[in-house]
């Protein structure tokens, strides 16, 4: 087994004459927290969709959890978890029902679902809310639950697409504690975010501009390179050259 969770080589996605993703090359180590930054329209979502097995690249190579993105989409899907910026649980199902559903869809056995879901509920401290509809929970709880559900089937990699949008700073902090825990247990975390303080929490980050990877390093080294103390400034210096904007 190689210890690279994701490998991209000259990965390109073209819509007509528009290069949404333009020859990106990077790799992500197993167990790493990998930040994927970029302004709206920089190509983050497109790249992520390819890596999740939702769309085919136009050219280039990529493998996720050791599986080829052209030929082995099914295997990729079995080995990843995904949580999107849009809230992704069913509001009119209870906490337990949501867990059971996603567990079932990922083919987790019934016994495992039962055991892991009661563990999960007690870790999250949701014992009282277990039988409540998810719609009645506060947003912060929902997001934490959504993340737990995304890694419920113990994937090798979890993709988080702006997971903390609209969440208050305290909950965001707790959310990142959960991410660290997941990473410590060996799950690779691939996360996109707009919050620069969150970028600091990542082991390494890339910044995408106009479909290309403009920078790839640890937060500390990036700050050194751009001669600044904040990630905000790094991001601003990189992104201001962008020709594309908006989605």
């Amino acid at each position, binding site marked *: 087994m190689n210890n690279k969770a994701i490998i991209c080589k000259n990965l390109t996605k073209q819509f007509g004459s528009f290069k949404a993703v333009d020859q990106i090359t990077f790799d992500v180590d197993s167990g790493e927290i990998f930040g994927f930054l970029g302004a709206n329209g920089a190509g983050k979502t497109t790249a992520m969709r390819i890596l999740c097995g939702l769309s085919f690249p136009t050219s280039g190579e990529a493998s996720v959890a050791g599986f080829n993105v052209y030929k082995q989409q099914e295997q990729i899907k079995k080995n*990843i978890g995904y949580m999107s910026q849009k809230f992704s649980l069913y509001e009119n199902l209870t906490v337990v029902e949501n867990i059971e559903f996603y567990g*079932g869809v990922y083919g987790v056995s019934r016994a495992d679902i039962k055991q892991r879901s009661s563990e999960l509920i007690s870790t999250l401290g949701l014992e009282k809310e277990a039988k409540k509809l998810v719609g009645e929970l506060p947003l912060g709880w929902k997001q934490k639950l959504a993340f737990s559900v995304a890694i419920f089937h113990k994937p090798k990699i979890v993709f988080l697409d702006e997971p903390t949008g609209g969440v208050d700073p305290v909950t965001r902090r707790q959310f990142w504690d959960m991410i660290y825990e997941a990473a410590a247990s060996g799950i690779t975390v691939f996360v996109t975010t707009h919050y620069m303080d969150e970028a600091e929490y990542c082991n390494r980050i890339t910044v995408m501009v106009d479909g290309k990877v403009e920078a790839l390093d640890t937060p500390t080294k990036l700050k050194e390179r751009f001669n600044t103390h904040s990630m905000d400034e790094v991001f601003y210096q990189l992104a201001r050259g962008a020709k594309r904007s908006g989605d």
Partner: protein
Amino acid sequence: MKQLLSFVHKEFLHVFRDRRTLLIMFGLPIVQIVLFGFALNSEVKNIGIMVLDNAHDINSQQIIDKIATSSYFQLKEPAQSYRDIERKFKAGTVKCALVFPAGFGSDLFHTGKADVQVIADASDPNTATIVATYLRSIIADYQQQLNPNAGVPYRIIPEVRQLYNEKQNGSLNFIPGVIALIFMIVSTALTSVAVVREKELGTMEILLVSPFKPLMVLVAKAIPYLALSLINFIIILLLSVYLLDVQIKGSLLLLFAESILFIITCLSLGLLISNVTNSQQTAMLISMMGLMLPTMLLTGFMFPLENMPWIFRVISHVIPSRYYYIIVKAVMLKGLGFSYIWQETLILIGMSAVLLTLALKNFKIRLS
């Protein structure tokens, strides 16, 4: 398979949690049956009638007695003048009037010929025609009573049998139509909304990222609605038999098989609709306006297709419920077997295949 089961389970939970869906699903058939069965009755009964009897003889009285005993008419108090009649017509309490001229009986007796005037309120032309026919037959009946062995050399007596509906039960005609309509609403509208809702909420994305096959997403969505439609079908049949006195003459098994086929057609249509739109409201609107109206108007259960301009008749051929309506009528009311409806069955199978293929193809295109 286990994945599919958890998905179907989830879909059922959605349906049972959503009061509105439940109300539409199970309230609708009951309301429709009651509405069509009792309120929208095209039979004409208890028509208000008044008589202006200028003759006051035994013959006019006998005719009036005959009318009074008929269940079709409700005899109002006698009119004194034409103005009386006009007033009651305007008030709407009376739909028709019979006027005997002075000397009606003696004319009949002496010359063998007498006139009687029938006035009907033709602002509702259908009722007016029916009323006139009823009165004519009552009078003809009386005429025959008068001279049972009259010297008419040839007499032709038509013996009318109303086949497949001897009791003239008005419910028979619309029940197949209502069944088709309800399948359209439950299977098509609710399925399309159920799929589109996942797109709106963003959960569809999660499902597509999961190892669950896109094709299976559609199957899992469709299964609960297939089951619920069948339950609905049973409710309608029970209501028809026990409440509206409709007899099911043909094979129940065949009826169910054909209904499942039609439900599949409706589900495919619903899935196809869910592909072209991303909002629940649009999906609802397309299903309701685009499908319910044509189903009501162009299947022939409310208005006969034969009388429509050719363009509508042509359009009616692409409406699935038209064929299902023919099938249900044939099996349920006429007791016919499969050999009489194989053509319609084949058309429905063809339609389902085309719709389903289109739905699946579009669903896949959306992914890449």
